[in-house]
């Protein structure tokens, strides 16, 4: 590693811009047989709620062309278990540790974040857009008022760097982004999953027991890239891009569109080494293009 791949998002330094996306990397313990967690720039932990949750019934997974659906539905051990049971090991093993918080009510968000504020977690990502739980966030994330309300509530109780994760299932993501920025978010992450469905034509039933689920994977990349580009051009705060990133070239596209860092999720299921391949590819790209910092390419796409 001759190049410095670090980027700074909302004042937090990531040794490289590749972050494991929430819900795809658990609490950082599951891939350690293959490589240590500290190879990644950061990890956004599994979406956590105030109380433990069992999530949705199975099946929770379906495949789609170049993508997948999930309807896990925020199964998680609750914020207290996150803080006492997982966070210490995460801090020891990893680089930037991001808690991902979801809730049904404003008070859920408030209490969970309050408890995090006194920990050494590095960043808090607000999940206001989980498509799989009726009151798990999606209802907040689809309106400017809802998104602003959650951001405001949480901002009031924490000084931690605050990243708000936006849903793509809206008419105008730029308006939502601006509303969240106005309430004091330090950065934005997007896109969360689209909402999709598959049907088993033999049984005439939806494959997912939840009927519909979050749609991710390479298939969604063009939507993600478009939204990151729109949002990054409309806000002053940092943007973290995600949605179908699989290769270093995808990551570079996303950064050129305006993302300071990127998250990877579904690609890890296909190839657990894909985040490392992206990191290697980014370093090679820096060498070939004689870059001193990856931030030199952020937002450099020149529209026609």
């Amino acid at each position, binding site marked *: 590693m001759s190049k410095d791949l670090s980027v700074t998002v909302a004042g937090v330094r990531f040794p490289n811009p590749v972050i494991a996306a929430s819900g795809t990397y658990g609490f950082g313990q599951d891939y350690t047989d293959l490589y240590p967690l500290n190879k990644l720039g950061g990890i956004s932990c599994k979406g956590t709620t105030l109380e433990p949750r069992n999530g949705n019934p199975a099946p929770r997974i379906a495949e789609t062309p170049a993508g997948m659906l999930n309807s896990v539905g925020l199964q998680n051990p609750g914020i207290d278990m996150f803080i006492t049971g997982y966070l210490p090991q995460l801090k020891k093993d990893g680089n930037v540790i991001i808690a991902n918080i979801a809730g049904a009510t404003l008070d859920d968000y408030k209490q969970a974040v309050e408890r995090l504020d006194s920990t050494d977690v590095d960043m808090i990502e607000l999940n206001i857009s989980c498509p799989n739980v009726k009151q798990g966030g999606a209802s907040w994330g689809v309106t400017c008022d809802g998104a602003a309300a959650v951001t405001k509530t949480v901002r009031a109780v924490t000084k931690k760097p605050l990243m708000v994760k936006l849903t793509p299932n809206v008419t105008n993501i730029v308006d939502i982004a601006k509303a969240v920025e106005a309430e004091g978010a330090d950065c934005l992450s997007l896109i969360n999953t689209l909402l999709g469905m598959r049907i088993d034509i033999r049984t005439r039933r939806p494959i997912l027991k939840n009927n519909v689920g979050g749609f991710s994977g390479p298939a969604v990349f063009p939507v993600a890239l478009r939204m990151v580009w729109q949002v990054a051009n409309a806000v002053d705060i940092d943007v973290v891009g995600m949605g179908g990133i699989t290769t270093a070239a995808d990551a570079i596209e996303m950064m050129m569109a305006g993302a300071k860092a990127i998250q990877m999720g*579904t690609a890890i299921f*296909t190839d657990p080494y894909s985040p490392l391949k992206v990191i290697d590819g980014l370093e090679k790209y820096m060498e070939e293009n004689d870059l001193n910092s990856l931030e030199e390419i952020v937002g450099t796409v020149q529209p026609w």
Partner: protein
Amino acid sequence: MAFFCDEFPIVERSEIASGIFSYVIHCPSVALAAKAGQFVHIRAEGYTLRRPISICEINREKGTIRIVFEVRGNGTDKLSQLEAGKKMDMIAPLGNGFTIKEIPSDKTVIVIGGGIGVPPMLGTAAEYTDNKVKAVLGFRNKDRVILEEDFKRVGAETAVCTDDGSYGEKGLVTFPLIEELERGKTAMIYACGPTPMLKAVINTARVYNIPCEVSLEQRMACGVGACVGCACNIRKGGRDFVLRVCKDGPVFKAEEVVL
């Protein structure tokens, strides 16, 4: 409990029944770590999700494992086109595997497989020597019968049932199972197969009060416990848990499984 992710060379490929393929893969690290009842998670080119396939046999001396799978869709069809000499991209071995026990010399274990749930039972049977294993294998019909000779090879006394009676006994695996249990020599039951079969086996084991382990199936994404996609309901000590088939299983104690 370590697992690996790599491309491993295919030593042997054969179609052992129409649409059912057997592969022997050279992967010494995996073979050394693997236990009967574990699975491998295979990448099919062009598909987002890997396919979990149970390990059928483990040969630690040769450094190989064998897997047997049925073509059920485009992904497994793609996998089945991989020829000997090509490589298989696997995360393996995954999951917990069956508990192999020391049993008294006058006791036996029963392994029960239904359809494409039969392959993992072969490796389980092979863990017991000295004719200690009774195997009960159920299939839809004669054309679907697989691995019977293999079970005999590893020393299992093998009964085959088919739904339509076109081969072996006609009917469900529970009949030979009960017959064997009535002899009072069974120390342990292991089973893998479709849900209705598992339910019947679990109930039967409960009635006869014999320890039983079953291997579950569920649609899966990561395969290593990270995504919590492959949920199953487990009841322990009066409490309900949602566990992961891939990491907490695929093998569970029969009395804890809520199907």
